[in-house]
């Protein structure tokens, strides 16, 4: 793996490939028959079901980028696809309401469902989830005479995602519980109504992938390379304070040496946003060397679906393995037929 550095200069990025590693690569190359051992480590910095911060050290960027692309485009979730509207007298148009319903994230676990066939016309228990929304806005009989706040004057003025009720299809009651079929958040505003308005609809959710529609994306994924800061000369006094301000907080510390001088020290370059602000000031422009390590990737995953953040990442690796398997099977098909010829 190339462990070069990317130097961040004032107006350009300079890619330096590590020459010592190239000769090591050639030594590895002379043994193609041995099993490819992956030199690399994975370390989780922070993890909870919604967010994940994970470090990939020693892996090539093309693989990490593939995981990011798969999370955004090919990891499946469940979202509302078709809406049958029986009555909609609110001022929110049918199509706008249906679009908003599609974007509501659902807590339904997509791994229990199959993809629906394109030609399928019925809603089966194994590939769809049905919801109903039946809300009327009426005057509040208990409101005081001089009340002006519309939210208390009328009942059900705001249609929230908590009004989406699950309607079990087929044998879904045996497998799922009501609490695991609700939208992820209860307070998503879908529509606003006035007295006398009514919304009555059935919504059907199916399994889909992000490349079809962004509502099917399980979450966000992005990565950055680890920044490094090196001080090329001693920076003291006012310049040290200025240097500290040029970087994100916590990156540069100003410490007092035993002689009483205030000197800048690099504390932790990891949190730096790489704004290169330091190049604005001529006095300290020459005092730092900013680089990025090309083989240390900080990968972030945020989940807004039923899958937990680490499950999304594992699922994307599984999908990548699936792609390789599919192609290997295709090649075997061809080589078998060649042998037959």
């Amino acid at each position: 793996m190339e462990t070069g550095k990317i130097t961040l200069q004032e107006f350009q990025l300079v890619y330096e490939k590590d020459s010592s590693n190239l000769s090591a690569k050639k030594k590895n190359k002379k043994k193609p028959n041995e099993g490819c051992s992956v030199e690399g480590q994975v370390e989780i910095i922070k993890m909870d079901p919604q967010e994940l911060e994970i470090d990939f050290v020693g892996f090539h960027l093309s693989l990490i980028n593939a995981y990011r692309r798969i999370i955004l485009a090919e990891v499946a979730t469940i979202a509302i696809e078709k809406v049958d509207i029986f009555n909609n007298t609110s001022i929110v148009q049918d199509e706008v309401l249906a679009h908003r319903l599609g974007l509501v994230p659902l807590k339904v676990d997509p791994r229990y469902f199959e993809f629906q066939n394109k030609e399928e016309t019925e809603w089966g228990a194994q590939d769809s989830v049905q919801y109903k929304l039946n809300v009327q806005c009426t005057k509040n009989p208990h409101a005081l005479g001089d009340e002006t706040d519309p939210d208390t004057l009328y009942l059900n003025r705001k249609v929230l995602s908590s009004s989406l009720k699950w309607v079990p299809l087929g044998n879904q009651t045996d497998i799922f519980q009501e609490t695991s079929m609700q939208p992820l958040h209860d307070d998503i505003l879908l529509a606003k109504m006035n007295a006398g308005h009514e919304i009555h609809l059935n919504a059907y959710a199916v399994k889909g992938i992000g490349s079809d529609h962004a509502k099917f994306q399980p979450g966000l994924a992005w990565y950055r390379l680890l920044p490094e800061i090196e001080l090329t000369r001693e920076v003291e006094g006012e310049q040290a304070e200025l240097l500290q301000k040029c970087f994100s907080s916590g990156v540069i510390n100003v410490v007092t040496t035993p002689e009483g001088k205030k000197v800048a020290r690099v504390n932790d370059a990891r949190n730096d946003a790489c704004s290169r602000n330091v190049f604005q000031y001529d006095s300290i422009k020459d005092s730092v060397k900013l680089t990025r390590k090309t083989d240390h990737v900080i990968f972030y995953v945020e989940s807004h679906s039923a899958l937990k953040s680490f499950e999304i990442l594992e699922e994307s690796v599984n999908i990548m393995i699936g792609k390789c398997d599919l192609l290997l099977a295709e090649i075997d098909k061809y080589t078998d037929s060649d042998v037959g010829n």
Partner: protein
Amino acid sequence: MPVGADGFRLPNVNESIAKNKLEWLTGPGQNECCRTFVINEEDHTLGNALKHVIIQNPAVEFCGYTIPHPMERKIHVRIQTNKTPAVQVLHEALKVLKEQNEVVKKMIQDEVKRYEETHLPQESEEMVSQ
């Protein structure tokens, strides 16, 4: 124009012809050792990762991938070797890529377990002490 149950146009008859996942081009620049493979329904996700693995192979003289047109979902992977059949190179590269992915998957699973073990027990201790 034939219309389906939900009011949308039925797909053309031509669209339903199943495409092969993997094909290769024929012509003057193609032989056993120098081949351009066409992989349907793929993009940079697989292309870049596969190209990187193929290049690590010392038998390969040239390897590159391209997407001929952004509106068609397919990639062309060109492999040129001296004596090894290109199909063999592709096969080995896919195996290596699959192996790398399985190693990464195992690493992630182990890390998740390790993190859960080191972090969640502390929370339950706090709950007990309160």
